[in-house]
């Protein structure tokens, strides 16, 4: 078989998994249009009305009609959800009410404007997150979006229309949609509709036509939306071919690697790569190579943003460290079996790099071997933007520069009176020493300043002729330039060493922190310690406030309201736990919270939440990866402890059960052996009639009857003990009424009274599911009771009947019944009514009741009007 066209097993598995998950999840249908006014909402509502007509439980979650009459007309027929009103800074905002939809649980919800940004104070920052939550809860959703709001297209759109798009949705939501409907009309028709006033009111229309609805714009947007739809269809066809093993032109196992840096060009590169990977059906990896030179704060934030974007758009993100960017990239590319490397063309070239090494693009092209390299150019304006912001972003403040200059001047001042003694050349050496030592306390900028200042100061104040920049002797000129050069190089080199050291130290700190956590967690012997250790480690390392809460046995988060955590925070914690997603401050869900909440998960499930309070977004974004590592470890440790606990409990339970059985067995053995001996001997004697006369035989029979009674008593006591201990196992099997009756009537003591008992079993009595031995025991007890408590001439009747779901067994006699007040207490333990010839144990009926209860049935006693007592047993079939 052609290996190229064989479906990739992983791919197939994913396909199956996808279909399986879809069963639990709600279905998402997205209506896509090129811009406002094409009729997305209208066709969405038409479909909703159709579904509603078919009897699907449909609800309008949030639809904006913009006063369009056709749309409003449709809305009239559908049940609508009232909007939630939020007040933000004195303004009332209407929002989609997610919670009441989750409460109502309809089959289908219509939520317009997928790209909408929710008002502050809502659970999620974006509406598409609301929709994801609806889908997770098994609710189908119809929604609509314009093509310009799709993340990977927004750049292109703003370039075409010149309007910056702020509200975007990640492409992944388009991908997870089960169905996409393109709502398309021609630009001419749209313009016609605009001028007819069907889209906006007259004054708004003019603005709109001038700004946005130009025919050229519309055509371009239309092409974008058509292409989006076509891409998706293409992908569906490919999926279909792959699943159904149809040979096609597709080529699997394409893997794209993109190099990501902090530059804004990278943002565009990421979007571009996503589109390409989507159309190529390739997986893609975003790689960032950390070099020893630490990025400044601005760059770090930008980098994190870029990596986050890549993650959001579906890339796998790898951060590696290497001295050399090209080597790092190639190493990852080889490990990941990449077929294509995509990088941005870097415009920045400084003097040094031009001298020391050729630029990244050229080197990558030379060294990439069989891997294709694609270079994407960045837009020039973004380059400017970068420079603008880079300047003030250096690490040291003005203060450091002043201090640095101050130190140099002070040293020079101190040396000035000495220079006549030690000579001005020695001064140069001392100043050089200062420059060498400065990097220990200063950033690179101030060091460079010092390196520049020192030779100048030396020249001006110390080298004759003094107080001029002129130098008299030729060797001094040489000395000056050497000084200048040495100071500069020493400054730069020591700074670089310091920086590397810093990075190394940081990395080591992280490794040590993780190691320490692992160590502490492995030493913790119970859940409480695991949590305490983890919280301690997190608080120490990140310098934040943090807490961890676990779920109780009932699957609910154990939260005490009296803790000094507000109820608002508690509700966020609950949400995080139930949805197993992070939320809280600096995230997209429930950002109004004070803490960031993470679900605490182990390999087998979610066990609780961890809350961390970061003070600024920058440190949060920087530390998040490491924090997640911490939490993963904690999750595993928590899981380990929980599993240990469970195993321990199971062992104790098993042990107690074993003990119980041993005790019970020996008890029953001890009690029954003497009875068995008596009965065995006496029955032997009864059978050997020849040894004795009639009166002795009578006595033997008395012994026999008494021992049978004793045996019944012992068995009743044991049964009662078993019932009360809860160790009774009901082993239901199909049984036949006649069988049951025969077994009951076969008991020796009942057999002796057989002539008093009649049985009534209807023909075609179906099989029923009960524990044969237990029900037999229950009936035997009731009948024994009837025999014992009624005069000898009384008849006992056993009746079976049934209806659709129950089996009824009645045992009745024509005796004198029991006093009404005793009826209720009949099934009580050791309760006996005063009657002369009883001889019962007072346990039989309560055992019967216990057995029937264990079958989830009922037993009741009645005095019949015709006289006599009647027991009715009702058992589920």
């Amino acid at each position, binding site marked *: 078989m052609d290996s190229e066209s064989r479906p990739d097993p992983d791919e197939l598995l994913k396909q199956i998994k996808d279909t399986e998950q879809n069963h639990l999840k709600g279905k998402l249908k997205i209506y896509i249009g090129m811009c406002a006014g094409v009729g997305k909402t209208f066709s969405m509502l038409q479909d909703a009305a159709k579904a509603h007509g078919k009897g699907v439980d449909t609800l309008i979650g949030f639809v904006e009609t913009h006063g369009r009459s056709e749309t409003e007309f449709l809305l009239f027929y559908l049940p609508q959800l009232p909007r939630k009103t939020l007040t933000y800074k004195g303004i009332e905002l209407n929002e989609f009410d997610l919670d009441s939809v989750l409460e109502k649980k309809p089959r289908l919800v219509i939520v317009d404007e997928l790209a909408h940004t929710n008002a502050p104070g809502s659970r999620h920052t974006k509406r598409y997150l609301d929709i994801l939550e609806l889908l997770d809860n098994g609710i189908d959703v119809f929604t609509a979006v314009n093509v310009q709001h799709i993340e990977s297209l927004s750049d292109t759109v703003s370039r075409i229309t010149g309007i910056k798009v702020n509200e975007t949705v990640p492409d992944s939501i388009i991908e997870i949609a089960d169905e996409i409907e393109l709502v398309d009309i021609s630009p001419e028709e749209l313009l016609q509709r605009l001028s007819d006033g069907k889209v906006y009111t007259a004054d708004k229309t003019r603005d709109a036509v001038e700004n946005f609805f130009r025919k050229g714009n519309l055509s371009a947007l239309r092409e974008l939306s058509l292409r989006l739809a076509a891409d998706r269809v293409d992908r569906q066809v490919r999926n279909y071919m792959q699943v159904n093993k149809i040979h096609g032109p597709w080529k699997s196992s394409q893997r794209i690697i993109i190099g990501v840096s902090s530059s804004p060009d990278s943002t565009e590169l990421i979007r571009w790569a996503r589109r390409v990977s989507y159309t190529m059906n390739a997986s893609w990896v975003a790689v960032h190579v950390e070099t020893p030179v630490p990025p400044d704060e601005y760059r770090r934030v930008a980098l994190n943003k870029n990596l986050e974007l890549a993650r959001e758009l579906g890339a796998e993100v790898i951060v590696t460290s290497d001295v050399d960017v090209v080597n790092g990239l190639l190493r990852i590319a080889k490990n990941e079996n990449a077929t294509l490397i995509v990088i941005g063309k870097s415009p920045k070239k400084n003097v040094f790099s031009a001298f020391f090494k050729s630029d990244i693009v050229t080197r990558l092209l030379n060294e990439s071997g069989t891997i294709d390299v694609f270079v994407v150019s960045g837009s020039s304006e973004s380059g400017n933007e970068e420079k603008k912001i880079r300047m003030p972003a250096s690490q040291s403040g003005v203060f450091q520069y002043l201090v640095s200059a101050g130190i140099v001047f002070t040293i020079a001042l101190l040396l000035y009176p000495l220079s006549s003694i030690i000579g001005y050349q020695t001064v140069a050496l001392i100043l050089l020493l200062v420059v060498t030592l400065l990097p220990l306390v200063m950033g690179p900028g101030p060091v460079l300043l010092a390196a520049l200042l020192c030779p100048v100061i030396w020249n001006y104040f110390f080298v004759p002729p003094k107080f001029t920049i002129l130098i008299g002797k030729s060797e001094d000129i040489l000395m000056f330039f050497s000084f200048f050069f040495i100071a500069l190089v020493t400054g730069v080199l020591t700074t670089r060493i310091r920086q590397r050291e810093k990075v190394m130290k940081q990395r080591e700190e992280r490794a040590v922190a993780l190691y320490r956590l692992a160590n502490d967690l492995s030493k913790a012997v119970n859940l409480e310690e695991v949590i305490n250790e983890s919280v301690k480690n997190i608080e120490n390392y990140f310098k934040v406030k943090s807490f961890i809460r676990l779920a109780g046995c009932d699957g609910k988060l154990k939260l005490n309201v009296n803790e000094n955590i507000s109820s608002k925070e508690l509700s966020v914690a609950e949400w995080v736990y139930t949805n197993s997603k992070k939320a809280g401050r600096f995230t997209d869900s429930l950002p109004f919270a004070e803490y960031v909440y993470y679900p605490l998960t182990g390999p087998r499930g979610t066990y609780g939440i961890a809350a961390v309070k970061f003070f600024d977004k920058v440190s949060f974004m920087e530390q998040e990866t490491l924090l997640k590592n911490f939490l993963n470890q904690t999750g595993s440790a928590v899981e380990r402890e929980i599993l240990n606990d469970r195993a321990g409990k199971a062992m104790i339970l098993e042990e107690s059960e074993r003990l119980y059985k041993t005790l019970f067995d020996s008890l029953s053995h001890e009690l029954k052996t003497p009875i*068995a001996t*008596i009965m065995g001997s006496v029955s032997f004697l009864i059978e050997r009639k020849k040894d004795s006369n009639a009166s002795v035989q009578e006595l033997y029979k008395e012994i026999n009857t008494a021992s049978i009674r004793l045996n019944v008593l012992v068995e009743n006591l044991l049964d009662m003990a078993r019932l009360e201990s809860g160790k009774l196992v009901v082993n239901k099997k199909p049984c036949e009424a006649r069988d049951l009756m025969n077994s009951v009537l076969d008991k020796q003591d009942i057999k002796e009274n057989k002539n008093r008992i009649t049985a009534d079993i209807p023909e075609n009595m179906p099989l029923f599911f009960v*524990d044969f031995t237990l029900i037999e025991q229950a009936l035997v007890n009731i009948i024994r009771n009837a025999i014992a408590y009624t005069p000898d001439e009384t008849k006992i009747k056993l009746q079976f009947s049934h209806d659709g779901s129950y089996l009824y067994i009645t045992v009745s006699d024509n005796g004198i019944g029991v006093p009404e007040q005793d009826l209720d207490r009949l099934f009580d333990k050791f309760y006996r009514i005063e009657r002369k010839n009883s001889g019962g144990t007072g346990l039989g009926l309560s055992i019967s009741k216990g057995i029937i209860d264990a079958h989830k049935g009922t037993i009741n006693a009645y005095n019949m009007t015709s006289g006599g007592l009647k027991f009715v047993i009702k058992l589920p079939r």
Partner: protein
Amino acid sequence: MNCMNENILVIDDEIQIRRLLKISLEDSGYKVFLAGNAKEGLQESVNCRPSLILLDLGLPDEDGLSVMKKIREFSETPVIVLSVRNSEKDIVSALDSGSNDYITKPFNTGELLARIRACLRLYKPEQKIPQFINGNLEVDFSTREVKVSDKIVKLTSTEFSLLALFIRNAGKVITHGYILKEVWGKPFSDEVQYLRVYVAQLRKKLESNPSNPVMFVTESGIGYRMKIIE
């Protein structure tokens, strides 16, 4: 009695029960050997070549079930298990691991002797049964003809195999699981309802009073027994 020279081994930890059994069994003409624990019992079961073993399930030094399995490793001697009520599960396991019958303590000596006789009769190797007669039931295996009170009764093939199984084990208890496995095959060994239906049909066709069967009797919680009508 025709059971002279039959050795019976009693394995029970209770001396009183051992004495009782010795007296009553010897009175019926059996030669009786006694063992008070599993170790002795296993030794004796080799030494005294018993024709039948009475085995108590509650032994002090070893679980009766495992003794049962050990006996079956070297011998096909019929074993009747002695046990207390409420241990149906143990009884079924014992039967499934090779014991031939069971009797619950306290027992009636007459009943015990009848079980012993049925067991010994069953294991006479020369006894091949082309024809089987029990009460007014008559089965001819060569022609597969079944008669009740000299009247031919038609059985379906499943009913006949069920009947044949009962006859092969006449007088002895057989567990639900065993019957289902033998007649319907292993995958059906949990489908007790099949069995209930077919036993009811056999009773209808072969018993003189199907609602009060005397031949195909139910052993509650364990299985069925074809009683020998004497």
